[in-house]
């Protein structure tokens, strides 16, 4: 990287995240103003958005070419009190906590105390949401049966397609105007609502254009004072670009990146949506600009790389908004999950890999930033050298890029009714979940703790940690005569909690639709403009809701242990097992060892255990897939954990697989840490027994010792391993290339391993930042080697 990039990168990496009250103040000012009175919900939101974009501080950092920050400066992190109004205690915690702290200044605390909290307390979405939840929901939530994504952050997982590279916001305004003209007030009883929504979109479009123009003004101002003639010229060029995009479609590679970045900032300013926002298929979107600019002599490969690297830094400047409580537990990271896709197939189904796909991989390798995340989409049509290039980046040992199977993703899309073109142009976002880019509202609503549900079955609905009745009571498991009876009880308990969760979701989705529509976001997703409907209320072409299943490895092994020892071999009674579990295996180490060592385990290509995993997956699929959400869309199944397997583990006592109380659960669809002993091909065979084509995403972690990838041949063999997994329709695989010894050493000497980045779940993070529990969990994962 060149000097400019190096400096800006360093600034980004070394700046500590802190809370900025700017946005909180502006939105409160607006809501308290005369202007806000009597507005419809979408208009209120649009005008508030415009007010922020017109009044927030404009930041252009020294030397940068892509401009714009979400807060007043890099890592200055805004808050969203209309969603989650932090208490003074929250602010103290944010400031002092060891993991993912945000510095909070005295001024911020003061303004919160005097202005923000008095206005928003009781009025925020978080307050409304918890007040609206039924009792059974609260009990389950408190027990850790599931988590709730929408209690602090807005629905997200929204990824952009290529529309902003063809249309400017003036063009979107024309589309909006046309949609308003087409409204039929005589026959469409919702015409007024639609008109309000469309007007709101129009205001939001103006807001973004004005925001960019303010950057142009600032750049001109800086240029005037600039002594260095080279930088002066750059600033003038920045000014010109910001006057052009996003009002008009971009004309050059540089403008395309700046266009996206303004769009991105609008998105993360309107709300704090999960997984921020992301450009999706970046190599595809930028390639036409790249080729034209290079052909016409405006751009070199080096310059393109520099611009991309500066673009990367912009993402890293924006930590995930501060989370607290369980939301923080389930996603304890600054990483905000923008996942840039390269590779895959084109709209016509042909190989999409191009020169930029490789250049972006170079950038990923060189930047070594936790944000943005990058993944490759790998189709059987993509060349092996593309995969091998990706693996060489993986070999650099910071977990990026993750690798996704385009061919199975297309199957997943087609199964759920997407057109073949939309399917080919979609992909994964966040950790692993797929969506039709630019056309789908894909909402992850919370994790479902399969292992806790099983614990409740084993305790007849009572949570052994609290003694409270949380689940349904189906009798004492000591009376179960067969394994099938136990499995059946699990399925009924599961159905109960899925019902409870969906009941909550139905309320929450309507709360968002009614109180917090997203007119800006709605401009960008087909077919919100055409339908005059909001993103949160059914506007997008496809509308999917997920509840993410967690703990398939831990639960399979636990069930296999019961089946094997209690029902099949009958060497252990349920009574004895439950007693040992109740006492966390105190004085029962022999039994625990038998459970750990002498039981079939998931991840070893052993059908005894794997058939249970398949049944558990099918059970989850059967209770969830196809159920309606409030947006005219459907529920789908995905299996991923972020960091929730640590939190979910904490709320679960000892389990029949020999896991002691409060230890982490297995992550994603990965086997229990250390339970897979037959090597990576066996793991792949096991996890591929689940029908990935019926999911919206699965997550498989594999840890390899670096020696495996030392030689060209090793890289080739890993490539074969990935290709074979994908022949089996595996959805996603990601790698840590590091030894447990290195990780232990990093625990001992964190100061020497500040830069060590590891793959956690669907993302990478600094090893020293992730907290002891997660560190231990990663160390415990099976180390694969080549024999």
């Amino acid at each position: 990287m060149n000097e400019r990039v190096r400096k800006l990168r360093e600034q980004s990496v070394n700046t500590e995240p802190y809370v900025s009250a700017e946005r909180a103040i502006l939105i409160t000012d607006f809501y308290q103003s005369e202007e806000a009175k009597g507005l419809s919900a979408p208009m209120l939101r649009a005008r508030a958005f415009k007010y922020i974009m017109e009044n927030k501080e404009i930041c252009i950092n020294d030397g940068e070419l892509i401009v714009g920050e979400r807060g007043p400066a890099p890592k200055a992190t805004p808050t969203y009190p209309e969603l989650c109004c932090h208490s003074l205690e929250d602010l103290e915690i944010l400031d002092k906590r060891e993991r993912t702290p945000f510095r909070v200044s005295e001024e911020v605390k003061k303004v919160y105390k005097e202005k923000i909290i008095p206005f928003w307390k009781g009025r925020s979405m978080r307050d409304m949401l918890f007040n609206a939840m039924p009792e059974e929901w609260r009990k389950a939530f408190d027990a850790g049966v599931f988590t709730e994504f929408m209690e602090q952050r807005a629905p997200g997982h929204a990824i952009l397609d290529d529309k902003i590279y063809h249309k400017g916001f003036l063009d979107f305004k024309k589309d909006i105007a046309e949609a308003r003209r087409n409204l039929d007030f005589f026959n469409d009883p919702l015409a007024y609502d639609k008109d309000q929504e469309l007007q709101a979109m129009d205001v939001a479009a103006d807001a973004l254009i004005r925001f960019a123009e303010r950057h142009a003004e600032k750049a001109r101002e800086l240029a005037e004072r600039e002594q260095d003639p080279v930088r002066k010229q750059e600033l003038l060029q920045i000014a010109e670009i910001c006057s052009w995009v996003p009002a008009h479609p971009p004309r050059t590679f540089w403008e395309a990146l700046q266009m996206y970045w303004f769009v991105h900032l609008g998105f993360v300013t309107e709300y704090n949506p999960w997984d921020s926002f992301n450009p999706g298929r970046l190599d595809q979107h930028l390639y036409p600009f790249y080729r034209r600019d290079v052909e016409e002599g405006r751009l070199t490969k080096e310059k393109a790389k520099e611009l991309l690297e500066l673009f990367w830094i912009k993402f890293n400047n924006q930590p995930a908004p501060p989370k607290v409580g369980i939301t923080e537990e389930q996603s304890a990271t600054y990483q905000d999950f923008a996942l840039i896709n390269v590779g895959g197939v084109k709209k016509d189904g042909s190989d999409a890999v191009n020169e930029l796909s490789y250049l972006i991989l170079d950038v990923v390798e060189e930047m070594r930033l936790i944000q943005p995340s990058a993944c490759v989409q790998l189709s059987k049509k993509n060349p092996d050298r593309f995969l091998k290039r990706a693996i060489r980046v993986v070999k650099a040992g910071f977990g990026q890029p993750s690798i996704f199977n385009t061919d199975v993703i297309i199957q997943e899309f087609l199964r759920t009714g997407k057109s073949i073109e939309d399917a080919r142009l979609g992909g994964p976002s966040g950790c692993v979940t797929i969506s039709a880019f630019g056309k789908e509202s894909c909402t992850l609503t919370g994790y479902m703790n399969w292992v806790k549900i099983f614990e409740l079955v084993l305790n007849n609905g009572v949570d052994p940690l609290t003694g409270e009745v949380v689940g349904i009571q189906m009798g004492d498991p000591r009376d179960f005569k067969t394994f099938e009876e136990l499995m059946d009880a699990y399925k009924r308990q599961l159905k109960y909690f899925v019902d409870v969760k969906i009941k909550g979701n139905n309320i929450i989705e309507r709360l968002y639709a009614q109180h917090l529509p997203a007119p800006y976001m709605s401009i960008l997703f087909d077919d919100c403009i055409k339908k005059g409907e909001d993103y949160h209320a059914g506007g997008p072409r496809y509308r999917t809701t997920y509840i993410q299943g967690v703990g398939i490895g831990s639960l399979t092994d636990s069930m296999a242990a019961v089946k094997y020892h209690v029902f099949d071999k009958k060497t252990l009674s349920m009574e004895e097992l439950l007693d040992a579990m109740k006492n966390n295996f105190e004085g029962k180490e022999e039994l625990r060892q038998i459970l750990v060592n002498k039981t079939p385990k998931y991840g070893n290509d052993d059908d005894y255990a794997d058939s249970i995993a398949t049944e558990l997956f099918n059970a989850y699929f059967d209770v969830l897939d196809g159920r309606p959400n409030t947006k005219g869309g459907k529920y789908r199944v995905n299996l991923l954990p972020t960091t929730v397997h640590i939190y979910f583990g904490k709320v679960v006592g000892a389990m029949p697989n020999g896991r002691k109380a409060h230890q982490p659960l297995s992550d994603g669809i990965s086997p229990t840490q250390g339970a897979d002993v037959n090597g990576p091909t066996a793991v792949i065979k096991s996890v591929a027994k689940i029908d990935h084509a019926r999911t919206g995403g699965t997550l498989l972690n594999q840890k390899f010792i670096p020696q495996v990838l030392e030689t060209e041949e090793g890289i080739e063999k890993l490539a074969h391993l990935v290709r074979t997994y994908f022949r089996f329709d595996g959805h996603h695989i990601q790698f840590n290339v590091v030894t447990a010894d290195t990780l232990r050493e990093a625990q001992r000497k964190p100061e020497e391993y500040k830069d060590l980045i590891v793959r956690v779940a669907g993302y990478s993070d600094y090893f020293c930042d992730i907290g002891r529990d997660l560190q231990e969990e990663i160390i415990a994962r099976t180390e694969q080697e080549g024999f």
Partner: protein
Amino acid sequence: MNIVSGGIIFDIKRFSVHDGPGIRTTIFFKGCPLSCWWCHNPESQSMNPELMLWPDRCIGCETCIKVCPNKAVSLIDNMIVTNRKKCVACGVCADNCPASAREIVGRRVSVEELLRDIEKDVTFYDESGGGVTISGGEPFLQWEFLENLLKECREREIHTAVDTTGYVDSDVILRVSDVIELFLYDLKLMDDSKHKYYTGVSNGLILKNLKLLDSAGKRIFARFPLIPGINDDEDNIRKTAEFVSGLSSVEEIDVLPYHKGGEQKAKRIGKRYLYNGEQPTDEVVERVVNLLQGYGLKVKIGG
């Protein structure tokens, strides 16, 4: 070899990436006519099952003491001690040890059983150009079993490789070579007296068989275990290189640097381990590779 329908193996490793092309499953046959000082699979030498101990896994529950039918396990000074003279490797303790701190290495398997395991990764072989490798021990000690197994593999279009010491009856190796697509052929020492000293057998037959296979046009990778102080001297390297250059079917020579895994395993099965050197430094490996390359040979480090 007495029972044609079955054989004795001590391990199956999937995702084997150092024993031939592609992703492979390696089956380790038990029993070896050689007793190399540096043997990296000491549990492969005897054809009989052996008791392997993992003391670091032991939780001290004393189950082994209670269940051993031969009273071979006892508590001495608060330590669980196994008298290997009394132990007949019957496996009762291993079956009952909760912590898997006691294992029996060596089990009799049928061709059908092995085929089931081999078939598990057939898609990986297809994708990577891999297959099955038979290693050991010396696979040809159980040549009829080997032949039956590999014949079945060939019928299933699974690529076959055999890792051999070459210390095999010439007729046998030629006969079975029909179902072997790749030989991984060890060349340990060129000096015969040293060979006898360090491996227990002469290298005459080994070199002869290699020439025979070469003349028969079999595909061969030569393998050179690099053992510091025993075979890393220039004279031996040059002689090895000269010998290999004189052959036409040897495609490459794989240098396998010594590692200490064997010493650990010897301890676990209660065997004396004769080699007490260290693994070669990168400089030594590089020197050997350069010397071999000087003869125009294709050299790889590792398999």
